[in-house]
């Protein structure tokens, strides 16, 4: 399954990350398009749930442009073409599409046969380990270059050059299908689904299913290139992740609430070792409880702590000024 993602880049930076190499060997940014789309535009977010808007890359041919790639914000969860009324109220769970049945599915086979293949881009996705109580969320993301801080917001397109392309944060590129839906009053809304497949041994410890991740630039190109790569070939691109193409870490349970959008959704946490953690905590607090040496140490920590709070106060004050 793949029912929650995060995308921490603004539109301008996304255009760089989703860029491509043109025939002359130069990098080009993807073109950003968003028409009416029921007034739902893309917003970067630490916690994106189905019915929210996610950024999708599609071939330019779908949108009458000479650019090879277009970024288009779409509603996550495919709106069935036959649906009438409020686009949010089709009551179907269409944010995932099983690779096994998609070519025979009524809902997905039509757009697939039309070549409506997209790539959903995100900083990463969340999955919950359900054997633990409470269930433990993890954040899955692409391997990063040294020095890249995954948890911060990326609004900096300076890491892109025509020569080298994008050299900043790496995104996960999930294979998806999109479709256009026409509302009663004639508005067109684009919506999409993320293809899922059986989890291989890299991720099966977590969940039986995982999203189909396009692992190389060639895979991305071929998946998007509906004119030259037939569906039967494109499906072969959907392979399970390897330990080199997918990384993960545990995060706090704040992300469980889809309305909670703060940055700590993707902040790594340290999991307690299950058995002895309580005992270790007790030991630590007991050792710290009295004794001179311990209290000496504690006070140096306190000083450091004090400085830290001091700094953050300054920061806050600056923020206030700006505000």
């Amino acid at each position, binding site marked *: 399954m793949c029912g929650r993602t995060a995308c921490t880049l603004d539109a301008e930076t996304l255009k760089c990350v989703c860029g491509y190499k043109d025939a002359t060997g130069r990098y080009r940014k993807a073109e950003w398009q968003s028409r009416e789309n029921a007034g739902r535009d893309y917003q970067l977010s630490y916690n994106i749930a189905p019915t929210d808007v996610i950024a999708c890359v599609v071939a330019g041919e779908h949108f009458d442009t000479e650019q090879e790639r277009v970024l288009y914000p779409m509603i996550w969860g495919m709106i069935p073409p036959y649906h009438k009324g409020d686009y949010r109220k089709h009551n179907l769970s269409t944010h995932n599409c099983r690779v096994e049945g998609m070519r025979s599915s009524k809902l997905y086979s039509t757009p697939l046969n039309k070549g409506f293949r997209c790539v959903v881009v995100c900083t990463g996705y969340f999955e919950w380990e359900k054997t633990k109580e409470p269930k433990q969320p993890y954040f899955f993301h692409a391997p990063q270059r040294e020095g890249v801080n995954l948890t911060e917001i990326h609004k900096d397109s300076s890491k892109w050059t025509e020569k080298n392309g994008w050299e900043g944060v790496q995104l996960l590129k999930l294979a998806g299908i999109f479709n256009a839906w026409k509302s009663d009053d004639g508005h067109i809304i684009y919506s999409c689904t993320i293809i899922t497949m059986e989890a291989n041994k890299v991720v099966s410890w977590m969940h039986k299913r995982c999203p189909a991740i396009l692992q190389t630039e060639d895979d991305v190109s071929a998946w998007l290139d509906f004119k030259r790569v037939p569906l039967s070939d494109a499906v072969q691109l959907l392979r399970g992740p390897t330990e080199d193409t997918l990384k993960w870490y545990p995060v706090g349970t704040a992300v469980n609430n889809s309305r909670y959008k703060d940055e700590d959704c993707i902040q790594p946490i340290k999991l307690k070792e299950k058995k002895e953690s309580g*005992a270790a905590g*007790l*030991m630590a607090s*007991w*050792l710290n409880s*009295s004794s001179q040496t*311990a209290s000496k140490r504690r006070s140096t920590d306190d000083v450091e702590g004090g400085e830290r709070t001091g700094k953050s106060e300054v920061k806050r004050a600056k923020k206030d000024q700006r505000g």
Partner: protein
Amino acid sequence: MFEARLVQSVILKKVLEAIKDLLTEATFECSDCGIQLQAMDNAHVSLVSLNLRSDGFDKYRCDRNLSMGMSVPCMSKILRCASSEDTVTLRAWDNPDTIVFVFESPNRDKISEYEMKLINLDQEHLGIPETLYSCVVKMPSQEFARICRDLSQFGDAMTIACSKEGIKFSAAGDYGTANVKLAQTAETENQEEAVVVEMKEPVKLTFSCRYLNSFVKATPLCAQVQLSMSAEVPLVCEYQIGEIGHIRYYLAPKIDDEEEN
């Protein structure tokens, strides 16, 4: 310079056996008063506190305080090269990089020297709080070792309950349960065999068998073991080391996962 000589190297051999299950490296603090070691296991659930007083050594000299980080497995290997009858001398210079172990056979016709590299360790001075314990039990160390071994076959954890009647050890697991009760012994002449319970309040605590089974590796050091317990503080499991000092193990009780949060 630092020099400490023990006629009975067997004591040091047993001390190493008693800590090597729990510690991979440790800082030995040497001062005028003797040699001290305090270290926690990797999981930070148990604490080992070793104290060897200077007056317990046959010869002891420590010109300035030294903290020597040692690899416990390496030190254990070296001490295994000593025969039980050998005399052992530890020697190091001020600001040392290495420590030398010298083993001399009783008639001094064989002298072996082993030099071990010291390691840099982060020094963590752990303050052990003074604690008044609700129950202090003295019992034969072999009996305790046997109970720990037997009960660990039934479960990962062992409950020790102490009341005025005596002390009860119990474990429960998939196969069934095990209970061992020891009554206080009447006043006996054989102190080594005595079970003595000093109790202010009854106590019932649960501990990981794995750690207890590491602690009882100290059994050869002393015929009696002393267990001190209070609710919600670590158990102390103490063995005297002849006339020279003691080794104490501290183990935090297990707490339910619910209480953990």
